Each structure stands twice: as C-alpha cells, then as structure tokens.
C-alpha cells in the first residue's frame, strides 16, 4: 500500500474544483487512457492576467487526482506570470510530498498547466517539439532533460518515476542513460555513474536480422536444399520458419539453435532467442 500524506488523502477523497469551465480561456490536455492517467485542465484568465478560476478532470490514481485538485487550488488567484514558473515540485510539496514512484503525477499537473497557458497565449509548447524517446508513454527528450535538471535526477529509475519514460517496454533505457550523461555534462557539480551504451531501436534490430538471414544464413541453408523465412521479432524473440529439407528434419532444432541463433547473436544482438514458427 502507498503511504500517502493526509493532504493527498484529503484531496483525493474530497477533490476541489472538479469539472470543466465553459468557455475557458485556456485548455490543457495531457496523458492518455493507455498511459493510465490523463488530465484536462481548464482555466479562466481576467484582463489583469490573473487566473480567476481553474477546474480539472482526471483519470488516474489517488495521487493523480490529488495533484490535480491541489494544482487548481494553487492556481486560483495566481498571476499568469507566476503560474508559468510553477514546477512539479511546488505541487508535490504543497501535498506534503508524494511517494517517489508517483512523482510523475505532479509532473502531469505541471504539463497540463503549461498546455493550458500555451493554449491561452497561443504560444506553441517547446516541450512537445522534442524528439519522442519513450514511445510507450510518448515522452520527449526535452521533457526528460528538464526533469533531470529540475529534480537533479541521477538514474534511469528516477527518470521513470518522474516522467514515466522507460516504464513500459524498456527499449529506450539506453537513450535515457545517454540523456543522463549529456545533461550531467552540462551540470559540472554533479557526478553520474553511468556509462554510454548504444542501443538499437527495434526497427534497426529487425532490419539487421533480415540482412544477416538474407546475406549469410539463407545461402548456407540453400546449399543443403533448405530455406528460411523471418516471421516475427518480438523483443528478443525471433520467430522463423524453416522450409525445404530443413522442415521436420531431425536436426532442424540443432540448425536453429547452433547455427541460426548463433549467427544472429554474433552479428546482431547477444540476447536474441530464435524459435521456429509451428
């Protein structure tokens, strides 16, 4: 069970400012149902550039709902200029802290605020222009770099806690490490104990597997009257079908493991597992 502060519990059980402002001056939508949390923030801004009202609708866990509720409370009566400087840490602190695995809920609140302000001012959000690093949760490099800088993050796990990046399939872990190193290099007082490691994207991996099969494996098998076809690549699992004299051949398993798998491991990725399509 999560250890939530009384403040989090209070804002979760009796959230403030639930709903949508009609004819809102700014609307910010972040997250999606696939990600497991989403927030729609609507704000009203008066002629003195003061936020007079804020409402939210949130799909998510207790800390997502509490963060949204707290954010709207903080915003009401705040100058737009001050709201621009509000960070995720401000939201988390107002709640008396959040469990570290739940920090991304406060980040979501801040991002919704930025989106709502951008909608009001008509300025395009720079964060959305970055390059998507985590495809599972749609997180860009700019968002990650900012989270690293503002919260002094030093590990991939912390990046995941704050931005969710890397929390899905984990394929972007290598890139996250690179961003840690690159960002840390810009922050001289910080030491980060991570090594640069080049990781393949899944597209690169599939291409490379195909290439090795076509160039080396297929010609060899054909010499023995056999053939091979790539069926699927799912993570480290490579499914192939063996045809011709290879199929059903007593030693096809040996061919698969001792030859095909060995070749692919040597030339593509050490962790590949080759299986036959049945």
């Amino acid at each position, binding site marked *: 069970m999560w250890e939530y502060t009384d403040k989090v519990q209070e804002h979760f059980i009796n959230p403030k400012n639930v709903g949508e402002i009609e004819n809102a001056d700014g609307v910010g939508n972040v997250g999606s149902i696939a990600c497991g949390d989403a927030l729609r923030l609507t704000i009203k801004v008066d002629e003195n550039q003061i936020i007079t009202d804020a409402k939210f609708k949130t*799909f998510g866990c207790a800390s997502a709902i509490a963060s949204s509720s707290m954010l709207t409370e903080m915003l009401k009566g705040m100058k737009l200029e001050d709201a621009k400087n509000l960070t995720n840490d401000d939201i988390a602190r107002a709640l008396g802290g959040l469990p570290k695995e739940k920090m991304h809920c406060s980040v979501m609140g801040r991002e919704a605020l930025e989106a709502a302000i951008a909608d009001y001012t008509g300025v395009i959000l720079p964060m959305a222009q970055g390059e998507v690093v985590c495809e599972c949760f749609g997180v860009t490099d700019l968002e990650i770099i900012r989270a690293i800088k503002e919260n002094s993050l030093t590990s991939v796990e912390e990046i995941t806690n704050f931005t969710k990046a890397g929390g899905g399939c984990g394929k972007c872990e290598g890139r996250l490490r690179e961003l840690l190193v690159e960002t840390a290099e810009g922050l001289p007082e910080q030491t980060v104990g991570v090594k640069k490691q080049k990781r393949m994207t899944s597209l690169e991996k599939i291409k490379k597997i195909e290439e090795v099969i076509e160039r080396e494996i297929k010609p060899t098998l054909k010499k023995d009257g056999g053939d091979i076809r790539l069926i699927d690549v799912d993570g480290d699992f490579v499914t192939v079908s063996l045809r011709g004299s290879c199929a059903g051949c007593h030693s096809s398993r040996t061919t698969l493991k001792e030859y095909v798998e060995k070749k692919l491991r040597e030339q593509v990725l050490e962790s590949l597992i080759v299986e036959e399509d049945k």
Partner: protein
Amino acid sequence: MTVSPDQVVYMDNNATTRVAPEVLDAMMPYLTELYGNPSSMHTFGGQVGQAVSQARQEVADLLGASPEEIVFTSCGTESDSTAILSAIQTYPEKNHVVTTRVEHPAVKNLCDNLEIFTGRKYHSTRLHVEADGTLDLQRFKDSLTDETAIVSVMWANNETGVIFPVEEMARITKERGILFHTDAVQAVGKIPINLKETAIDFLSLSGHKLHAPKGIGVLYVRKGTPFIPFLNGGHQERGRRGGTENVASIVGLGKACALAAAKMDEENTRVRALRDKLEKGLLTSIPKALLNGHPEQRLPNTANISFEYVEGEAILLHMNQHNICASSGSACTSGSLEPSHVLRAMGVPFTAAHGSIRFSLSIYNTEEEVDFVLEKMPAIIAKLRAMSPFWEENNK
C-alpha cells in the same frame, strides 16, 4: 444482521486468507510446550515427528496423493522453483520449458530468466491465452518438442480465477515423455483435486491461500518422478528439502487441508452463490462494467470486473474508506506503469485493464457483506467517472 462500521469486509482471499481459528488452536502446542525437533531420538521430539506425519497425511488426503509424495517447503514460490529447476537439472541435454503468459511471477520470472541462469542453454515458450483467458490445447500440443524438459502451467489463475485443463495437459505431456508441473496455489482447497487419477508430476501449493499461516508450502512430487533438491542440507523430508521442519505451520497446514476437504461443498455452493450474486449485482447496477475471464471455467470464489474509464487504485482507495478489501490489476497499484500481464495477455483494452478490480471470497464471507459491497460500489464508480475526462466523451 448488517455490516458494522468498523468491520473489515475482506474480499481479497486470492492474496491471502485469515488463519482459521481451528488451525491456530492446532498449532499452539507446537509454539509452546511441544518445541522438540522431530529428528531427535527422544520421545519429546518424537511426538512432534508424529504430528508432522499426521499433517503430511492430511495434505495427501486433500490432494488424493500418498504421504511420501508430499514435501513441505517455505512457500509456493519455493515449490515452483524447486520443481522447474529439478527438471532442468534432471535433463541437462534438453533445453526447453513450456509455460503460459499468465503465470504468477513465481513461475513467470523464473522462466523469463531461464536463459541467464542456464548459461543460455534453456529457453521457454510462453503460451498465449484467448480473450476469455483460456488456453488453446492444439497450440499447446504444437509447442512440445523433443527438447522440452518440463511444462509448467497453473491450475487456476490468481487474477481471473480461470481454470486450465491441467489434467488433460499432463496426459498429453506424459505421452511425450516430458515432466508436468502445475502451480495449484489458487486451486487447492477451492476445487476437488485427485492426483492419483492424473499424470501430474509436480504440484505447488501455499498454506496461506487456504487458511493456514504464511511461510508454509508444499511440493507434491509423484512417486517415480526424478527429483533433485533445491535446498541441500540435512535429511529432512527424506533428503528432498534440507532445513529443520517448520513444525507449527506444518501442523497448521495439515489442519487447514482437513478443513478444506470438509468445506469443499460449501466453497462450491454457498461461496459460489455469494460470488455470483456479487458479480451479477455489479454488472447490472453499474454501466460499462465487464467480466474478465471465462464465465464458467473458473474458481467459485473469484470475480474480476473492469469498470471502464476509471482507474483501479482510485477505486480501491475509495473502497478502503468503507473497509472493503480487494485487489486491482491497474498499473498504479503494482508500482509498475503497466497494467496486469494477465489482462494484457488476454487482450483486455486499456480502457478496461486500468480499472479492473478482483473480488476473491472465502467461506468467511457473508451475504450481508456482499450486499454492503453492492450498496457502496455504484456511488464510488459514479464519483470517479464524474471526474474522468474520458467518461463523458465516450458516453454522450
């Protein structure tokens, strides 16, 4: 009778169960006066050995096994690891394990990492499940190879309660000369099991799922099945599991098995009726509520229901306000960012997977408790949906 304000309504029995009062009574002497070591030569220790023997008989009776086929372990996870690793060591020339995508982490994580601790020698095939959580037997047959050392398939799924046809699968496996293990942690005590009539080689069970304490498990090892111990040490358990016996818990488990045998009918009639009432009530009173898992081929105590467009942890914490205990397959409850691997393997859409709640009942639940939950749930779901940005736009 009604549910009093401070009463805990416990519907999370697939997570753990209360220790039956009869079980605790049976254990107490072995935590107090009868502290002897069952391996000792003196009468004082010897009488403790007799209690262990009796418990072994009671466990065997519930499973339709012989006492010498029962090995006491520390938990279900130890039993699972022992069985699978024994098979791998028995067949160093083989290289393949067959399992499913919906196993408990005790089996799933072991099989996911087989490559690493067998020096890349072994790998696993993880069978897909259908949308209702059931297995395709033809695909299972096709997955078996001459290199397969062991098949490990759970008897009943912990999240959905879906029952797999392990008796038939064991028979098919046996014909191919392959060992068969089943993680029956959720099945034992809830549905009748008679191992004598099956070809199952290994079966794991866990005490705390059937009203015995935590920290006691069993591995059934069929007579004649090759076996290599996981914990090496003394001669306890006839050399199959080193370590001084957890006597009090073993005695408790024996008692729990005897109780489970006596209450098997109640589990499958009264508890099933309560579950059905709860399930039907929730599905009819709450719109966009869906049942996860096969409606019939299922444990009598489990109902896994998704409430679309709301998130599971938020539901659980509102239930907690009323002292109602259940579980969720949502991402947020596990600390991971992705919803349950079981629901994902079944292809449950994200709109529903994040809002899944598992209710698991026991013989200690009452109709008043079911009525109480049925009374509270609609308002909880409605409140969360009112603040969900997806609810209105999908239900205009």
